[in-house]
């Protein structure tokens, strides 16, 4: 049975990709995931903005108390002569490339165009097989309209794609006014793939202390439905690769994502909950289902339930929504 799939031009032995997660921090975990059947691994996202903020904070905190008092003109060692090691993230890419046979995809969230390009080039030099641009952006400024937000993303994608030779995927949030149009624009800008969707941090409130509690909860299968809908809508038009990210916990979830048109299925929460071995059961589940349903290859059923090929396209669309609302009234 042929579980292989092509994602971002990379030949994957099955559709299961370990999504951006802390797993990539630990070589042993990555090896276990590969052993369990992972077809590719996405590194934890590098947040350039965070790095820059941390650098600024370090400089600020080490300098801010200096040259105030004759006995202590500084409070930290001077590292002018210290041979700085390679950047840990780039080192991680290199190590994983050495240790693993499966493709290694670096993930990046830049803070400005310069940092997107600079990091992407360094990822490529470090040996990454592809880059996932993690477009995590929360539009809080009422002065900036959607067109401008999307224009900036497209500009970044065009620039990054032009600066590297390896394929570039774009991980999006679901909150775009016309996602299928935007997906097409991304493809035209050179994106080799689209990852649907980013999961935002979901701050909660402490109602006793009136505090905001930043947190990120693990996903569950209910989040899959949003992905299925948009994969189904985008896949008929897309020539680029599509990946489902968020809500794949069981083999059935993965099968649905592929039916909706995904070339790859990213898994994180299920692995964090169940451990690397869960990947084997996902892969086996897919294999059994294909065997039970006489599919010889993934490609055979990929997109079979998308908007173009599913038996009841209306079920994806507005009519269905109205029907469901009406059913609630009864």
């Amino acid at each position, binding site marked *: 049975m042929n579980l292989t799939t092509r994602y971002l031009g990379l030949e994957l032995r099955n559709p299961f990709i370990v999504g951006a997660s802390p797993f990539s921090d630990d070589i042993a975990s990555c090896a276990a995931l590969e052993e369990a059947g992972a077809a590719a691994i996405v590194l934890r996202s590098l947040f350039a903005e965070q*790095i*820059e903020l*941390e*650098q*600024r*904070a*370090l*400089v*600020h*905190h*080490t*300098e*801010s*108390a*200096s*040259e*105030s*008092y*004759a*006995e*202590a*003109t*500084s*409070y*930290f*060692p*001077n*590292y*002018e*002569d*210290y*041979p*700085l*090691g390679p950047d*840990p993230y780039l*080192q991680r890419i290199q190590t994983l490339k050495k240790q693993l046979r499966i493709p290694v995809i670096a993930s990046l969230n830049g*803070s400005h165009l*310069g*940092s997107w390009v*600079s990091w992407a080039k360094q990822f490529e030099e470090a040996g990454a097989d592809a880059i996932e641009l993690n477009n995590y952006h929360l539009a809080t400024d009422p002065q900036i309209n959607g067109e401008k937000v999307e224009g900036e993303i497209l500009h970044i994608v065009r620039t990054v794609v032009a600066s590297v030779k390896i394929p570039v995927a774009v991980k999006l949030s679901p909150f775009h006014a016309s996602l299928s149009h935007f997906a097409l624009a991304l493809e035209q800008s050179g994106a080799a793939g689209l990852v649907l969707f980013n999961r935002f941090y979901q701050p909660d409130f402490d109602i006793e*202390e*009136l*505090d905001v509690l930043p947190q990120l909860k693990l996903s569950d299968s209910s989040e899959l439905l949003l992905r299925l809908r948009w994969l189904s809508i985008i896949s008929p038009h897309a020539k680029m690769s599509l990946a489902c990210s968020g809500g794949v916990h069981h083999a059935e979830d993965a099968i649905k994502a592929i039916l909706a048109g995904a070339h790859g299925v990213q898994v994180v929460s299920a692995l964090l909950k169940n451990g690397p071995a869960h990947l084997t059961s996902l892969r086996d589940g897919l294999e059994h289902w294909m065997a039970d349903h006489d599919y010889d290859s993934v490609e055979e059923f990929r997109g079979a339930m998308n908007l173009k090929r599913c038996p009841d396209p209306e079920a994806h669309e507005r009519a269905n929504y109205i029907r469901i609302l009406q059913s609630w009234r009864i």
Partner: protein
Amino acid sequence: MSSVETSPATFATLDANEAVASVAYRLNEIIAIYPITPSSAMAESCDEWAAAGKPNLWGEVPRVVEMQSEGGVAGAIHGSLLGEALTTTFTASQGLLLMIPNLYKIAGELMPLTVHVSARSIAAQGLSIFGDHADVMACRATGCALLASNSVQEAQDFALIAHVASLRASLPFIHFFDGFRTSHEIQKILTVSDSTLQQMVNEEDIAAFRARALSPDHPTIRGTAQNPDVYFQGRESVNRYYDDLPAVVQSTMDRFASLTGRQYHLFDYHGHPEAERVVIIMCSGWETVCETVDWLVESGEKVGVIAVRLFHPFHVDSFVAALPKSVKAIAVLDRTKEPGSLGEPLFLNVMAALAEARSPLAGSGRVVGGRYGLGSKEFTPGMAAAVFKNLTAPEPRHRFTIGIIDDVTGSSLDYDADFDLEAPEVRRCVFIGLGADGTVGANKNSIKIIGEQTPLYAQGYFVYDSKKSGSMTTSHLRFGPSPIKAPYLIRNADFVACSQFGFIGKIGVLDFARVGATVLLNSPYSPEETWQKFPRDWQESILAKELRVYVIDANQVSEAAGMGRRTNTVLQTCFFALSGVLPRNEAIDQIKATIKKTYGKKGESIVAMNYAAVDAALAGLQELKVNSAWATPLETAAGRHRYFEGAPDFVQRITARLIAGEGNLLPVSALPADGCWPTATSRFEKRNIALAIPSWDPAVCIQCNKCVLICPHAAIRAKFYEPAALSVAPVEFKSTPFRSHDFPDQLYTLQVAPEDCTGCSLCVQVCPAKDKTNPRHKAIDMVSQAPLLAAERANWDFFLQLPDPDRTTLKSGEVKSSQFMRPLMEFSGACGGCGETPYLKLLTQLVGDRLLIANATGCSSIYGGNLPTTPYCQDSDGRGPAWANSLFEDNAEFGFGIRLATDRHADAAWELLRSLAPEIGDTLVREMLETDQATEAGIARQRQLVTELRGKLGQLDDKPEARRLAALADHLVKKSVWIIGGDGWAYDIGYGGLDHVLSTDANVKVLVLDTEVYSNTGGQSSKATPMGAVAKFASGGKAVAKKDLALMAMQYGHVYVARVAMGAKDSQTLLAFREAEAHQGPALIIAYSPCIAHGYPLHLGASQQKLAVDTGYWPLFRRDPRFAEAGQNPFKLDSGPPKIDLDRFTANEARFGILKNVNPDRASELAGHAQTDVRRRYAFYEALAATPETDQASINLKPV
């Protein structure tokens, strides 16, 4: 070796500490270190170079090892020398004194060693971190050679000469130069290349040294005990080495000259070839005298000066040879004082040399000695001229002083304070800044740019004031076409800049400007508005001196570039643009190159931010051209006199002048001879350094007083009082009904001291009371100080007049209640957000009226006792903490001694009271004997009884016992002796003494303010530094875990021990202080103290302490022996098991974050070990808490 090219010799711009360290590092194998100002930077450089893997001359990385004290260093270097390793160290002041016993040994054993000393005062009537020769002169008898360097260039060169001569002569050297004036002066010098070092170092000498090593392969014994039959001869056996030494040094100097062209002699003469008057001097003052001599010779006078390089052994022939035959009078200048001596050491040597040479001068009365420059007192050409003038008198004054006014013994010479010898071709620039605003750093950059990128010579010297935060910095920069020899401050500058508009009218910025100078001001106003903001004397000064004034809103430009309040880059750019030292474009390119070099490794965004600031700077620069149409000038700014109204006489006469910066003008008679100063003076300083202060909303406040507790400066306080008290309150004075069952119908006020607050905002961070509809608004919010100032000043004055509550009615065991007690430590010079001072303030609230403090040298002795004003104060009865600092290393023993004396007096008083009972009256005596002084009420009652007793004793005045008891009666009220210091003292240098004192049954309380580094000297590692943190002396990350001082003290069983963190659990802190005080025996409290050396914004100190506790990094516990006596487990664990991973705590602090940047693998490895260690230690404490004391011996700390 950042700026020192090792080969070939090139110019570099650096200070003497770096220059000396560069040579010492390359020439040694073992470097033992310990921090002490002003030498620490030499050790720090060596540690950093070793961590970076820099090799020495033989391709090996020297082993740099920190010891627990200079005494420890001395032992280690002695051992290392016996082990045939090339060894060095750096020290100063008390540190050198601690090495003395070993220096005798090392010299006695004829070991080659060079100790590099940035010479510093010795603490006597007071401590001084500044420069003079008291320390090295205390080593005259050790047998070490004493070699003096006069400048940064010489300090570097002599570091090499001392090292080479020491190996050749087989004798140790103390190589010294002036602390601060030379150690911290940046100069453009020629470096010594590796190849010069190689050619200077004689491998045969090294081989000979190594051949004498202590080794079982060719065993010898050293350190034998010698008896009267041979000891004397043994001492004389070394004479030949000392006889030979001067020639060895001279030949080494000659060899050095042949390689570098820089020729030195044991004694160097400068001046008229037929000089009749000669000054003899060592170190930096030589250049000042040379400059004066040149001027005097040019004026037709026959004068000269001799620099003494090799002070000990003092070579008579060379000295006499250097002295012109024509000389008729000599003044010997010593930068030290030996009270009661016939003269200071250099004078005595000169006199002895002249006598030995049978010079008629010796008995002529025309060779005189004088003192100058103690504690870095300025030594100017005007003073040097006065010394020469003294020699023209028929009978020149002997044992004179110069640079002060001695109105007690009349020793001082008059001098012309305005005498100026600045060379016209030298460009002089003065920059006034605020500590940490980047001004000094930018100036250091500018000096490097000019010194290293142009043919010009450069000099920089930096003056800081005595406060740790909000301090003023003054940078003195000179640039010129020839080497700059002017080791004194600039008074007539061509260019003056001020980075703080707040200084205008308060600081004499324009006093530095010469006529026609250029002035650059950071001003948020337009030129016209700026002019209107100037006080009249500024406006007059600008017009009279024809100053060209430029303004720029550097804050706005920096803010826009993302640099916050760091205006350094903007002002530096303006400096180059205006000063014309370099062509503008070239200057900008150089500034950018320096930025790239400084920040390139730290992040491109930081580089970009600085570039943006450079580019935006010039656009914002505007000239202030005075326009006659502008508004009438303001009156001269109101002085600060109102604060001194009603102040004690001493404060008005002395303190006020110190605050005004006029301390140099105070005569000797103004100073207390025994170093005993009045307390309660910080309230007069009114520093006004907060841009924002807390503003109170009574409607939201829950009156918890947590803000009052955490405030490091006692600048926010709470009181409750009768409503009637408000009848005379200022209109804007706020109050609200006091929420209290115990005190109904009272009003409550939370009041900020607007001019004493530092604006740290800790109070706002800890405030738990949020506005329910707008939680961003709290009961206190930070708001701009300026608009509130007038009203809050009046409110604060009124607040102070409200009566303090009766202490006997307060529940001192409750945090809220305890904070109504008046703090007897206020407005210290500690950093904004200091984590130490809240503990001290709490202590003074609890027992301040009967408190004696022995304070180890360190941060707490600086903010606690650094002039001009000190923070310990007095209650309305005039009682308050009595405070004393002895040394760094002896504090536990010092406090123990205070306790012994206090107890002795109390015992005597009780004895006398009993014996006089028949005369005094049994009722009074019995009540005094039976009053329970464990409570505030008991203390108050006992004080009343003492007053009563004094009345009775007055009637028994004819009895000597009664008079004695009257003198001792205050001791019938119990006293509390607290021994206070930081972790450097308690964990390291003072540990032996601390351990001993804890082992006794003395009723002393020890408070360790644990910042986990030597904070005061700039953050060097101590045994309290946690694993994985970087600190100076641990720049590669501390490899081992923090010492568990609490556990060590607990082993005694009878010691009360607590670990506290006020920001995490204030109630436990309060409980620990009260229990420690109540315990009749020794007590130890280790208090977690956030510090700027941790590298995070200190207003988050309390939340970071919570994380420290929640991660298990800082478990809270108490061990009270009284529980054991009651049959209970004495150990109480007050914090729960680690709830979150350690990295949640460490991720917030730069001391951990830096290592992740520079060495991520090591950071990760150490973080892993640290996490394991935290869990292991908590498990151990948990077991202690759960196991009856009788079984605790079986609990073991499991290995990591």
